[in-house]
């Protein structure tokens, strides 16, 4: 921020379009983004339905939190045998985002914006998501399938975003990221490629334990669409989500903060498509009780998603957006994703994660602690750093 405030702006702006009607270009850019958001929402909705019909768990065509947790389990970092599977969707999203960013000239390796705080917040976002049983994306899918617990979750999510916007208004700023070496920004892509190899190679290192790579034989982890379909769906969603900058937390945040509803277009489209799709195939069941992979403890559905909402505002994006940014060279988002993965393993090892029967005591304590920790991080990271970044 500092140096350029003093010097006139002249840096990397080449190939300008001076002379053309720039106001029209600006307007077209905004229009294009809204159209992209609509198209992306439609594609994500259709992909989620398709994956569910093809074998993914009910109301879980896509779930960034659940699927990341499944991957962590497949690699043996937690021992919940019902939720272990190397989900190709996640790998597809990272690779798709990287592809879109590289082709679009937007792949930019950068990092250094409060990485460890992002790790902690990512950790607690995952704790919250696994108490609610879904990231913001699955919350919308659950809602589209008639699960009213997700409506409680949504209320909590928006309620959590409000204190986040207050923190932003009063100066929350994780600091500017700096350009880093390209090789550094490519790490998430490399990890995704290694996981892709593991999907097909399925090495068994510990014969007695049968893994890793583990794959559930019962429970949600055993329910999955064919690998190639999952991978392609992930790639498509990754590409579109990168272009459209799809982010549910960002949508509500911008509505509250600058009265800009554009970002919500994408998620509203997903909701409508999923509602129509589940209704048309007789899978729409409205109510609280008996919903697939969900529980009815509304206090904890509310508070858990409040934690996800608050955390997502503090680190600048929901779990899907973090994955996409990580694929686009943002090493800080990559650290957030690492926090999410560790949070997933911890949630199952420490029995925080909820199940259809309800929320364990540990999960309740963890959500309350998480709310406190994330809000404190938000309070402490206000204002500018010493060098003014």
């Amino acid at each position, binding site marked *: 921020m500092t140096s350029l405030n003093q010097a006139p702006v002249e840096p990397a*702006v080449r190939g300008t379009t001076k002379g053309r009607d*720039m106001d029209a270009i600006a307007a077209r*850019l905004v229009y294009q983004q809204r159209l992209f958001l609509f198209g992306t929402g439609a594609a994500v909705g259709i992909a989620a339905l398709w994956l569910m019909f093809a074998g993914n768990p009910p109301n879980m065509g896509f779930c960034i939190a659940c699927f990341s947790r499944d991957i962590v389990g497949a690699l043996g970092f937690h021992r919940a045998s019902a939720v272990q599977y190397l989900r190709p969707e996640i790998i597809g999203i990272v690779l798709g985002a990287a592809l879109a960013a590289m082709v679009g000239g937007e792949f930019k390796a950068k990092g250094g914006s409060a990485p460890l705080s992002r790790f902690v917040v990512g950790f607690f976002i995952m704790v919250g998501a696994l108490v609610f049983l879904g990231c913001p994306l699955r919350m919308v899918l659950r809602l589209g399938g008639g699960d009213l617990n997700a409506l409680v979750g949504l209320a909590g999510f928006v309620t959590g975003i409000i204190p986040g916007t207050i923190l*932003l208004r009063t100066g929350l700023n994780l600091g*500017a990221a700096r350009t880093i070496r390209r090789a550094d920004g490519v790490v998430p892509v490399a990890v995704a490629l290694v996981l892709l190899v593991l999907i097909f190679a399925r090495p068994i290192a510990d014969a007695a334990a049968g893994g890793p790579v583990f794959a559930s034989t019962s429970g949600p982890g055993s329910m999955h669409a064919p690998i190639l379909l999952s991978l392609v769906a992930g790639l498509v969603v990754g590409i579109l989500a990168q272009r459209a900058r799809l982010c549910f937390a960002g949508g509500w945040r*911008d509505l509250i*903060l*600058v009265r800009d509803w554009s970002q919500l277009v994408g998620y509203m489209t997903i909701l409508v498509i999923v509602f129509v799709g589940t209704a048309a195939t007789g899978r729409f069941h409205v109510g609280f009780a008996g919903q697939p992979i969900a529980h009815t403890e509304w206090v904890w559905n509310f508070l858990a998603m409040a934690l996800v909402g608050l955390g997502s505002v503090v680190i600048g994006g929901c779990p899907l957006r973090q994955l996409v940014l990580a694929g686009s060279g943002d090493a800080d988002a990559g650290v957030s994703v690492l926090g999410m993965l560790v949070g997933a393993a911890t949630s199952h090892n420490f029995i925080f994660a909820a199940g259809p029967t309800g929320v364990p005591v540990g999960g309740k304590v963890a959500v309350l602690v998480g709310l406190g920790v994330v809000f404190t991080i938000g309070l402490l990271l206000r204002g500018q750093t010493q060098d003014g970044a």
Partner: protein
Amino acid sequence: MDGPRDVERAGGACCSNLDLRGLSCPIPVLRVREALESGVNELRVLAEPASVANIIRLAQSKGCQVEFSDSTGTTGRPSPGGEIRIKRLPAENKRRDNL
């Protein structure tokens, strides 16, 4: 809250430059709004692709005239990131809040 410092230096009147690259959402949009609300009439903003559309929407909702030049992307092709020039129009021309 720290405002853009040169805005204060310029007495909140003339033009101002903001480099908002590297900042995560929604800080860039908030910085631009802060600058516009502090009475700057002309603003030159350097922004990353992810924040460009948001900044333009904000400026338009504030009734400003927006010009945009794209910078060259990392692969040499034009990317939607770049420089945004925001000019405040006289009050009577101000568009209604269209968001």
